[in-house]
């Protein structure tokens, strides 16, 4: 059930459109590439349109334009924000030194917030939790030691251009294999998610569209 409760015309049309697009996408599995390609373009277009829509209706207008129009013309930060929006939108036609400003601000602030948050919210609390021996049993200590060992090996696996002895080479190789195993585990989890998505779509076609089992 995808959330379309009713039996009104709009629900019916939405269900049919969703069913047809789902069939087109599933057709890609059987080698029907042209319609599948169109569906990908449709998705990309819808996503871009939606992004532009919420940027205008939920960000630019209510947070910049409306406050300026409502008597905030003397607020410098709003004009600055509007100028940054203009610089981003006009990037292809503006000198690089101007168009780079908003992008640099975005990248710089994201990196600063992410790094600071990772230290305060993850590294320090996790270190405290991992090194807290009060009430910790042998099993948890052993788990911590194994985790530290694996982390060390994986980090050694990233060493490049460093003169290596036999031990370091073996550790580096083990680290890379552990990394591959980790990626394999992650792909396994992802496979499960995608499988559930496929089942959900088939269930939608059978249940919501064809009415089988309803």
């Amino acid at each position, binding site marked *: 059930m995808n959330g379309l409760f009713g039996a009104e015309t709009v629900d019916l049309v939405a269900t049919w459109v969703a069913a047809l697009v789902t069939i087109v996408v599933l057709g890609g599995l059987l080698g029907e590439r042209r319609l599948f390609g169109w569906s990908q373009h449709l998705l990309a277009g819808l996503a871009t349109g939606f992004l532009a829509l919420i940027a205008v209706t939920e960000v630019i207008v209510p947070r910049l334009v409306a406050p300026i129009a409502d008597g905030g013309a003397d607020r410098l930060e709003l004009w600055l924000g509007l100028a940054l929006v203009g610089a981003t939108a006009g990037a292809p036609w503006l000198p690089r030194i101007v168009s780079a400003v908003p992008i640099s601000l975005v990248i710089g602030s*994201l990196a600063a917030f992410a790094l600071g948050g990772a230290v305060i*919210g993850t590294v320090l609390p996790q270190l405290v939790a991992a090194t807290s021996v009060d009430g910790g049993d042998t099993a948890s200590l052993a788990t911590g030691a194994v985790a530290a060992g694996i982390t060390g090996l994986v980090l050694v696996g990233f060493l490049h251009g460093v003169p290596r002895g036999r031990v370091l080479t073996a550790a580096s190789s083990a680290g890379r294999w552990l990394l591959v195993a980790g990626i394999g585990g992650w792909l396994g989890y992802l496979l499960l998610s995608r499988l*559930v998505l496929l089942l959900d779509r*088939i269930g939608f076609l059978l249940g919501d569209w064809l009415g089988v089992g309803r």
Partner: protein
Amino acid sequence: MTERRPLLLRPAAPALLVVALAIALVVPRTDALRLGAADAVPVERWNAALDALPAEATVLVAHDPDLGTYAEIRPTVRIALADLMARDARLAFVSLTPEGRALLVAELARLERGVVNPARMLDLGFVPGAEAALVSLASGPKVPAGAEGLIARNLATQGTGAIDALLVVGGNDLGPRSWIEQFTPRVGDLPVLAITPTVLLPEIQPYLDSGQLDAALTTPRDGAAYREAVTLGSLERLREPVEPSALGVLVGLLVAIVVLGQGWGARVLTPLGGASREHEHT
């Protein structure tokens, strides 16, 4: 010289998989394959966290799932929202990603059609800025102009002090980890719950172990066990009529294992076959 013809099975295999999954979906379900028969600890921890909430709690719902994994958590998300409402909680929704916003709009429309009391919900909209947006939310969510009701008033006057718990629906880049890193250190002691797809389990587990995350439902089995255990009273109408099929998941996983095993098997058998042919020639 003989050319190897492509097997008919190869192009037909995806169609066979779809047919097999379709059959698995319509086959009557048995208790032998029940997703809900899972480890009870995550559900107990989840219910304990919900039970500990104050009466008529205000819960900030951060809705940022991913389109590709939302199908896995959608039934659980819907039940969790209905459960919170059945417990008389007030829900304030926010999204930090366009994808999460699109899915949230659909969920809010569904709740509206489910005739849920609108006074118990507030849509805080889309907040741009990723990590910076989380920091700005920690200094007090911006209530949309024209928003009315108790939730809007409390958030406008008390800021994050009006929030009793945080529920993160994850899957996208800005999931529970981001909230724990950026939001909770700035707002103090706040219960944090999360619903995420299985793929985020390795990322979530350390926060559960350290207590930074109070409870989480991260696997289809945890979600199914929670959905089985919960009673929604008059909000049962919000429950999805058909539960995900365990047999379908099993069939799909078996097919995946066979496909992966085929690659390994071919790699192992090819040198053996070559060696045997060489032996015949000599």
